[in-house]
């Protein structure tokens, strides 16, 4: 299928999301679509899939101009997509989700066997471990992503749009996906691949189109002519990359200590200590239990054994309210849409939520001007790009949303900050900026517990790295900022535990 | 579209008013010698508690009163729903539109009083029709069924039909309605007077909605149809539903006294499934009410405080609009009986209860 976009524009209240953008996709190719958060990639994808109608410009398929009124039309025209948002029906089975809009029937009734057999076929291309009868809401995030991809594949369309399909899946699954995409390409399919991970783009794309501020920065350039550096500079307009922060040795008092913690998630014997002004990394694979541990510490989940000490005193933290106001501990959630932000509220309110208590004067009154004064420094310091702090957070790009969820905890001015996957789905520029910031606040005396599965990030920032695997801490690695040695040391710990276990079960 | 309709209706009203005026003039010219009641320019509203079949005869009564007594307007105005606030809003609105007297069924015997006080403050007379407002009240008088007496007489009638002994059940209306409390007392009193010969097995309340009544009455029959000797209903709906249930059950042993003359109840009396029903006189209430209100609103007459009012638990100024038992004997004639009662009350009302200049 030949898909051409010619001079498409799209405006939202206050933003020109796309400004005369073009894009051209040939049969039998994988083309990367790149750009920072807010550059207009998602808007373009939504236009191609019929969710938005362009204000101006043309969408053509095989030389014919299309005017999609709904996603239905786009699917009928042969365009399948994996969207960035989670698009599954929580209470439906995996099989039903995959075949949702064309469920097979027999005599007018759903043919359950056919559904599961059919869905199985597509799921098997990626992962044999997911049962098609399971309800989607009981799957892990990674499994849901696999289901989304299987769902797009099942349309067997000639054109496939993938918006960050690998954001939450494992390396192994990513490999399987890539093999599959390449096969589809060789069979003549046209594939658009959106990702922030440069490695992946270089590994799979044939050509690349780059958007910057809603305009074309590059149009269908062959990947072979691209280097990492010039791709980044096309996206951000200047050169930028992750810089390791200087190595520090933190030798101060302990502010947070865990002694033999147990939780209802299954954590056993978790002990560690965090010093003042330290960045303590907590590394682990998806499902190791890091976020759950963080939640237990801030009182959002019950602790069933052991104790937490804050500044040397036993702390019985029962909820986040207490963690914030009594113990001055904050937690920046990885799930910013559900836990981190109130999307229907404004930037001002989202940032100020943690400091309302402090701002409230007599009778609990909050002066809006005081609120604004308290919020503005963080909006400016974090360079949150918005026409107004009265903008609803739901209207911001992913990167700016993340900045808001960081800003509100900076505003809270806590002593201990747990930061969970701060840069997932964030563009390179914002990522570098957030790294700078985390380093800065630690230097300012705040203790940071940094949770991340991004190894380069861990190496760049952490002073020490705890390794977590299967609800246990399995080791501590000193960080000398040398990527190879540190990452090897970490992975060795994990492998060693895995081996121990398999010998144990074998024995 | 809507507005066009309003315009049209206004025109129509004006036209009717014009016609009425001219016909009255013509009437005066023709019957002037006979001395027909003086034509008045009063506008009287008859307002029920809400939409309910009981009040259907009021429409005819209003038209007849207007014609017979030469009143400028007697209008039957129905609140949209059976809710106190909608009724009072309607009254207020009509007062604002220049109505000069109100005949109101107090859907809520206590709640209507503040509105009646306000009407009185604006020198607009109001009367409680069909049911009474609870004293202290500013209603000029109450012309209606004495709910206590009706329930008491009904129970007596039932006891008679049962041969003076057995167990009875009382099907009552909305528990939050003050009238229900009175009826419950009346039934208890009548039962008490039998010195234990008759017992009150159970009181089932809140049977004013179709489905609730159906469910509760049938459940009751299912549970104790063998123990029950008789039933009395003091609400319109339970009366209808019980008549139907007894017919379905095909059991003529259980005696039943209902209330009001709904066709279903009358049919059941004819076929012997129901012993009788307490008739009320809605037409007479509306007709006489309009007549008296016209006299009061004209300023020519005032209420005679020392008249021979009947005193009821609800009010000191009560006039019985006629309560009689309909049974198989008077099934065909009860309407004439009521008409006669109506005429009697109307013709003697002025002398008995009013002081006129």
């Amino acid at each position, binding site marked *: 299928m030949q898909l051409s976009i010619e001079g498409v524009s799209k405006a939202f209240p206050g933003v020109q999301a796309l400004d005369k953008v073009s894009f051209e996709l040939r049969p039998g190719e994988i083309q990367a679509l790149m750009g920072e958060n807010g550059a207009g990639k998602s808007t373009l994808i939504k236009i191609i899939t019929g969710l938005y109608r362009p204000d101006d410009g043309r969408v053509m398929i095989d030389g014919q101009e299309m005017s999609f009124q709904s996603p239905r039309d786009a699917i009928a025209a042969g365009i399948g997509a994996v969207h960035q948002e989670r698009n599954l029906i929580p209470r439906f089975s995996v099989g039903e989700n995959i075949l949702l809009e064309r469920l097979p029937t027999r005599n007018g009734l759903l043919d359950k066997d056919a559904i599961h057999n059919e869905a199985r076929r597509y799921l098997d291309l990626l992962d044999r471990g997911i049962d098609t009868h399971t309800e989607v809401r009981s799957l892990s995030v990674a499994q849901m992503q696999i289901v989304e991809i299987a769902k797009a594949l099942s349309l067997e369309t000639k054109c496939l749009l993938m918006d960050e399909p690998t954001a939450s899946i494992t390396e192994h699954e990513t490999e399987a996906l890539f093999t599959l995409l390449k096969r589809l390409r060789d069979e003549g399919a046209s594939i658009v691949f959106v990702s922030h991970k440069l490695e992946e783009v270089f590994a799979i794309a044939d050509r690349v189109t780059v958007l910057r501020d809603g305009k074309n920065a590059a149009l269908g350039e062959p990947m072979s002519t691209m280097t990492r550096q010039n791709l980044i500079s096309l996206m951000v307009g200047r050169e930028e990359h992750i810089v390791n922060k200087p190595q520090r040795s933190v030798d101060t008092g302990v502010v947070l200590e865990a002694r033999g913690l147990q939780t209802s998630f299954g954590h056993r014997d978790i002990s560690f200590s965090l010093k003042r002004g330290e960045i303590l990394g907590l590394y682990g694979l998806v499902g190791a239990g890091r976020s759950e541990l963080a939640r237990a510490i801030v009182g959002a989940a019950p602790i069933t054994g052991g104790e937490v000490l804050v500044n040397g005193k036993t702390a019985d933290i029962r909820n986040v309210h207490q963690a914030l106001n009594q113990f001055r501990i904050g937690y920046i959630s990885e799930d910013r849409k559900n836990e981190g932000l109130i999307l*229907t509220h404004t930037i001002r309110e989202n940032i100020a939520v943690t400091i309302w208590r402090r701002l*409230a004067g007599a009778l609990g009154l*909050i002066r809006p001007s005081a609120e604004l004064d308290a919020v503005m420094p963080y909006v400016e310091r974090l360079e949150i790009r918005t026409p*107004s702090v009265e903008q609803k957070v739901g209207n911001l790009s992913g990167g700016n949303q993340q900045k808001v969820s960081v800003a*509100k905890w900076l505003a809270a001015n806590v002593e201990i900050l747990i930061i969970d996957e701060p840069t997932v789905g964030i563009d390179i520029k914002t990522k570098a900026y957030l790294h700078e910031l985390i380093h800065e606040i630690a230097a300012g005396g705040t203790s940071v517990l940094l949770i991340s599965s991004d190894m380069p990030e861990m190496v760049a920032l952490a002073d020490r790295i705890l390794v977590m695997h299967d609800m246990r801490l399995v080791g501590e690695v000193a960080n000398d900022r040398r990527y190879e040695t540190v990452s090897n040391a970490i992975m060795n710990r994990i492998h060693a535990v895995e081996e121990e276990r398999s010998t144990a079960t074998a024995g | 579209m809507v507005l066009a309709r309003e315009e049209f*209706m206004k025109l129509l009203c004006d036209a009717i008013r014009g016609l009425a005026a001219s016909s009255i003039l013509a009437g005066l010219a023709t019957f002037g010698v006979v001395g027909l009641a003086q034509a008045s320019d009063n506008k009287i509203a008859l307002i029920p508690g809400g939409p309910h079949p009981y009040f259907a005869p009021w429409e005819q009564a209003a038209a007849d009163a207007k014609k017979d007594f030469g009143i400028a307007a007697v209008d039957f105005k129905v609140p949209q729903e059976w809710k106190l606030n909608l009724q009072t809003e309607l009254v207020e609105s009509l007062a604002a*539109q220049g109505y000069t007297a109100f005949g109101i069924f107090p859907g809520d015997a206590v709640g209507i009083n503040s509105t009646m006080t306000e009407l009185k403050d604006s020198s607009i007379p109001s009367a409680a029709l069909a049911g009474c407002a609870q004293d202290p009240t500013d209603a000029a008088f109450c012309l209606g069924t004495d709910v206590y007496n009706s329930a008491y007489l009904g129970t007596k009638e039932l006891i008679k039909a049962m041969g003076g002994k057995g167990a009875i059940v009382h099907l009552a209306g909305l528990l939050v309605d003050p009238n229900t409390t009175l009826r419950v007392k009346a039934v208890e009193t009548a039962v008490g007077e039998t010195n234990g010969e008759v017992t009150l097995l159970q009181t089932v309340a809140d049977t004013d909605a179709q489905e609730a009544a159906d469910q509760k009455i049938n459940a009751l029959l299912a549970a104790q149809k063998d123990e029950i000797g008789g039933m009395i209903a003091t609400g319109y709906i339970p009366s209808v539903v019980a008549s139907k249930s007894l017919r379905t059950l095909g059991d003529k042993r259980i005696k039943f006294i209902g209330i009001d003359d709904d066709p279903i109840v009358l049919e059941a009396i004819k076929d012997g499934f129901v012993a009788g029903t307490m008739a009320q006189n809605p037409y007479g209430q509306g007709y006489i009410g309009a007549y008296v209100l016209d006299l009061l609103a004209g300023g020519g007459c005032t209420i005679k405080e020392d008249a021979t009012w009947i005193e009821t638990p609800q009010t000191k100024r009560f006039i019985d609009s006629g309560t009689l038992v309909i049974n198989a004997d008077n099934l065909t004639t009860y309407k004439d009986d009521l008409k006669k009662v109506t005429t009697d009350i109307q013709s003697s009302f002025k002398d008995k209860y009013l002081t006129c200049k």
Partner: protein
Amino acid sequence: MADVPVNFFHRQSHMTDETISTERSRRGFFAGASAQIGLFAIVALLWVIFSTLAPGFTSPINLFGIGRSLAVDIVIGFSQMVVLATGGMNLAVGSIGVCAVMLTGFLLQDAGMPIPVALAGGLLLGGALGWLNGFAIVKTGVNAFIITLASASLFLGAMLILSKAVPYNTLPPEVGQFGRMRIWGYVSPLLFIAIAIGAALYVLYRHTLLGRQILAAGANPRAAEMSGVPVGRVIIISHTLSGLLAATAGIMLVARLGAAMPSVGGEDWLLPSFLGPVLGGTLLAGGSVAVIGTMIGAALVTTIRSGLLVLQVGNFWLQLFLGLILLAAVMADRYRGVFLERRSLGRK
């Protein structure tokens, strides 16, 4: 459950955004308040139409009547609005209202308490019953719909058992006089009470810690909890407030009727309690309130009803026209919003 997006209620979000929790400062007052202005314009238009067609509409007695019933409807609307803000609902507003009414009546008539004490007693009971609702919802985790459905029955039942459904109709005359009092000949003091409560609520949601926390908890309870908002406490407080407001509405009715009766409130309040807030732009999904909108929403319904009464629409057909005009009004408001949105885009 928590992973299910709750977006169906949000469909109307453009037509509603009133005051609180929405953009305002930069886009100017008129852009922010445009939703209410639209609804307000419709109400104003209806007033012009009705008073032209029927002069009786603006007569003092009618204005007084409208104002007085509006006052009670507004407060009933508020009692629902404060729980809608948390994303819950309170089906027991009517039951709480009538309990407060009967207690006030008892204190005034049987116990012979002075009026302020009796009022305080009624309000206190309302608040306590609301607190009970909130406490049960937070502690059991069962949704507010079911808890308040059951408690509506419980409260009403307890009132019946204790009062035997006997009304109190010989209250001190001051009570009824207050309800009949007219200021400048056509304004009821009850309307001022409603407006004062509105002003207090406006300040609560816009300018206080508690108000902000309520809205945050309503918009996204998980995010609010994770940001240190004591969500459970906030929900309990909102229900207490709801009970307090329901009791206020009930006591206003006591003044208006000059009696305390078991038949006020109950299920009759249910629809009106939702009508004002929802017409005014409060989202059923929580996280937003429209204090002024609730007042205008209640005014819309009262205006249509009163206008139709004055126009003397045929006896039984009034309800039909009420429905049709209401439909026309909300649609006009909706299309005005869509039109403005298009225009503002076109200018860019």
